Each structure stands twice: as C-alpha cells, then as structure tokens.
C-alpha cells in the first residue's frame, strides 16, 4: 500500500472496533467497572440505543471529586459524560478525521454506522498509527 493511499483509507481501518458502551442511566460505579474490565479509555453513552455522549475515566473521576459526599453508585453516567460527541462515518478518510480532531481539540471520534456505534478512534489509536507511519518512514526513507 502506498503512503498516499493510507491517508485516504477509511477510519474504520484504524479504529478500535466494537467498543463497549453504557446506558446513560447507569451509575459511574458501573461505568468504572466496564472501563476496568474492558481496558478502554472512553465509553460511548447511549440513551435507548442512541449515542448521546462519551464518558472517560477522567470524566467519572472529575464528577466524583466535585461531589465527594455522594456515593458513585448514585451518580449517573449522564452527569459525567461529555454530550455531543464527534461522530464520524466508517468510510470517512482517516486524514479528515484527524484534521478535525486537531482543529477542534478533540481526543475521541465515535464511529457510527446506521445509528449503531461500531468503533472509536482515540488518541491511543492515533499514537499507534503515528508509530507505524514513522516506522515505515525509517524502513522506506525514499517513499
């Protein structure tokens, strides 16, 4: 594959597929369990199956620190999540997704296909792609 074609490849080729999701009515304690069990950084948040936000471990901690007297079993994910996430189609070129993330200071894109969350592309995926690109440059300096 040429490097030029890689920038036009769809985000689906680089995303983390089939991410775990959580319902907005779940508690942040439940969300923490999912994040720990699945080893992920971001959880797409659903309301009756529709994507309404993204919650990270930082978002959960931030809400908890701001409400130290409230049990995590009582605090809802909906309170912690960031609403209106960056949603992209699986066919969107990776270069366009990353350009938007840079321009708008975003650290995660949720990949949605026909109203279903099919993946996430976050900074970890970006770091992996960056190391691959730089490896290729080192291996094929004339490309």
């Amino acid at each position, binding site marked *: 594959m040429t490097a030029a074609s890689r920038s036009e490849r769809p985000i689906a080729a680089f995303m983390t597929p089939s991410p775990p999701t959580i319902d907005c009515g779940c508690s942040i304690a439940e969300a923490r369990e999912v994040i720990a069990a699945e080893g992920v950084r971001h959880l797409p948040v659903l309301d009756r199956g529709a994507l309404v936000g993204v919650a990270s471990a930082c978002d959960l*901690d931030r809400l908890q620190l701001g409400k130290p007297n409230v049990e995590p079993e009582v605090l809802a994910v909906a309170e912690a999540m960031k609403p209106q996430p960056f949603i992209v189609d699986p066919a969107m070129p990776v270069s366009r997704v*990353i350009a938007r993330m840079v321009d708008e200071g975003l650290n995660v894109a949720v990949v949605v296909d026909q109203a279903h969350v099919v993946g996430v592309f976050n900074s970890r995926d970006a770091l992996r792609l960056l190391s691959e690109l730089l490896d290729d440059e*080192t291996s094929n300096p004339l490309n």
Partner: protein
Amino acid sequence: MTETPFTVGASQTLATAQQIFARHRIRHLPVLSGNQLVGLLSSRDLGFLDGVTGLAGVMKVAEVMTPEPYTVEPRAALDAVAREMSRRKIGSAVVVDHGRVVGVFTTVDALRVLSGLLAEEAEA
C-alpha cells in the same frame, strides 16, 4: 513537544495551578518536589472544581496530579515514544534534559504530527 518553562510545586494549591494554566494558556504542568519531577497535572484534572467554591484554595496539587509521569529525553525517537505511550495507555510524556524539565509531548502534539504526515503523504 510543547515547550514549557513552567512547573508547579506538589505542595502548592490547585488555585495556584489554575492561575498558571490561565495566565500562560497551557494545558499541562510538570509537578516538582524540590528539584525532583514527581508528577504531571493537566488542566483537565481540575475540571471538577467548576462550580465548587473554596476547594481550589485548600486542595494541594499532589492530591490530584498523576504521579511518576513517563519521561523521555529530547532526542528520543518519536516512533518509540508514541508506541510506548500507546502501550501504557497514557496521554503525555514529560521531556527532561539533563534533569531539567523542558517540555511535554502530548496526544495533541501527536495528532498534529500525524495530521501533517498524512497531509504530506497525500500530496506526494
């Protein structure tokens, strides 16, 4: 990396850190105890203070910072740094030159490099 001549003390208050973030429009602050790097504080770590009065003047940086941050030398290979950050699932590396903090490399920097590389390749 993003060069940062600014640091904050582990025993300083979050209010002090907030002032440094705001005054210098930066997002990460290496945390020192004496001359020793002991942590990293992100402006996002302080989001929980929104709407809470009084807490920032009481809580210390050490209570909120990420301890023992990943450190690299300025000449470290970028691909190796990116791979290690991905493996460790972390969003930043503190750049240290002969024991002195000189910058922070974050996922924002990585995305910027990546965007540039992909744009260059598309034009090639």
